[in-house]
């Protein structure tokens, strides 16, 4: 059974301070729920950058190479057709579809990676049972600590002076 603690803050700066304190206190399973992008939050939580960019780049390049191979195969091997005496394998005609399909594939890889990284789709998420959690998409900033070694008492001590609006135990 998971043991999740959820602390609520009114502004992003307090959340950043809280996240840094939790990170420096070596608490594990840190995460945050915020209504918009907060600069420096992943670093404050000690989260490693996801491998999303690399995955997008690789799938874009691989698809571009595949698109070139498909065009080359159909024009040179499968269905050679003399078009105004141009060479059958004319890279000039092939490169633009490669670029466009490469970008499309990178976009799809990004979407798939986002869903996977966010753990979606997910039929049940216990956090939604926390009263007021819907304001994470409006004007509240939540810090989540998922560490069996950290109890309510220890988190309260770590956040001393930051005055979280609420502190919930989930799970």
């Amino acid at each position, binding site marked *: 059974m998971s043991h999740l603690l959820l602390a609520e803050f009114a502004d992003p700066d307090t959340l950043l301070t809280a996240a840094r304190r939790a990170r420096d206190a070596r608490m594990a399973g840190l995460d945050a729920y915020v209504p918009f992008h907060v600069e420096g939050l992943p670093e404050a939580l000690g989260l490693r950058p996801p491998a999303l*960019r690399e995955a997008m*780049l690789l799938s874009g390049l691989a698809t571009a190479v595949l698109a070139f191979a498909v065009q080359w195969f159909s024009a040179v091997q499968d269905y050679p057709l003399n078009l*105004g005496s*141009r060479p059958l394998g004319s890279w*000039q*005609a092939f*490169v*633009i579809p490669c670029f466009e399909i490469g970008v499309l594939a990178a976009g799809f890889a990004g979407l798939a990676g986002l869903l996977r990284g966010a753990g979606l789709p997910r039929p049940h998420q216990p956090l939604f049972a926390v009263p007021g959690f819907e304001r994470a998409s409006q004007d509240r900033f939540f810090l989540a600590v998922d560490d069996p070694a950290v109890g309510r008492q220890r988190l309260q001590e770590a956040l001393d002076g930051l005055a979280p609006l609420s502190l919930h135990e989930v799970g």
Partner: protein
Amino acid sequence: MTWRVLGPAVAAAALLGWAVLAPSAALGAGWLIAMLFWLGIALGALALLAVGTLTGGRWLAAMRPGLAPAAATVPAFLLVGLPLLPAMRGLYPWVTQPEAAAPGVAALYLNPAGWLLRSALALAGWSVLALLLRRDGAPRLVAALGLCFHAVAVSMVGMDWVVSATPRFVSTAFGTALAVTQMFAALAWVAVLRVVPAARAADLGALLLAATLGTLYLGFAQYLVIWYGNLPAQVPWYVARQASWWGWLDGAAVALSALLPFGVLLRQRWRADPGALQRVGGAVLVGLLLHLAWLVAPGHGLAALLAAGLAVVAIGGGWLALADRRLGDAHGR
């Protein structure tokens, strides 16, 4: 600082000696390449100032210390362009053989008087715009009308100065490609100056990436359309520019001003790093200079590249002195 005076002075003296002792068309081609390069940065800066004044945006405030002094150098090109007048005969076939242009075009449009009138009109109009848009808070109407003027003027001058050197060749995308390339050059110049504060460097990186793709797209689209059409009136333009090692010249230009910036700017951390942007900007400027040389020099041989090198130093000395002095003023020194 003596080398900044001495180098251009020596280059100018060498060009002058060359012109007196052994006048050749290559000299004019070299001067045109260098003028297109430095004027291109100035006009790109002018166009970016106009776009920024019209649309607003924080990027303009961050880049203005780099863009405004560059744009303010435009009037000087009324003088820099003068050596092209005696060079016209060697550069453009329609000066001596009117049949090099389509029937009627030589008599009514493509003749030395018309060329001179259009070039002077374009440079004078750009000079007025540069003086109006240089300062913060220029009226948006001036920027809007200025962009309309720029769109026409840059196409007109691009045809007159570069494209008309190839008999009967027309490319409707050339003016647009030239305008976008100039904006790219101006952005690269701002990156080289390193005037944008580190917090705003990501904006410059994003604009550079967009300009890289726009320049590459317009350049390749021209090539693809002509390759696909495969028509006798169009193809000689590229045949002359692929002959012997000229193709490698543009290959180097594409590597420096398209593949390198695209590869580096793809990475978010490098896109926001002023040091990386400065190095990329330098490579882009070199690449764009090679591209201009590739557009103008084939047909005039290696001598045109030598002349272009000398002229880039000679014009650049004066241009940098102007841009640097005004840069100092912008910082309140």
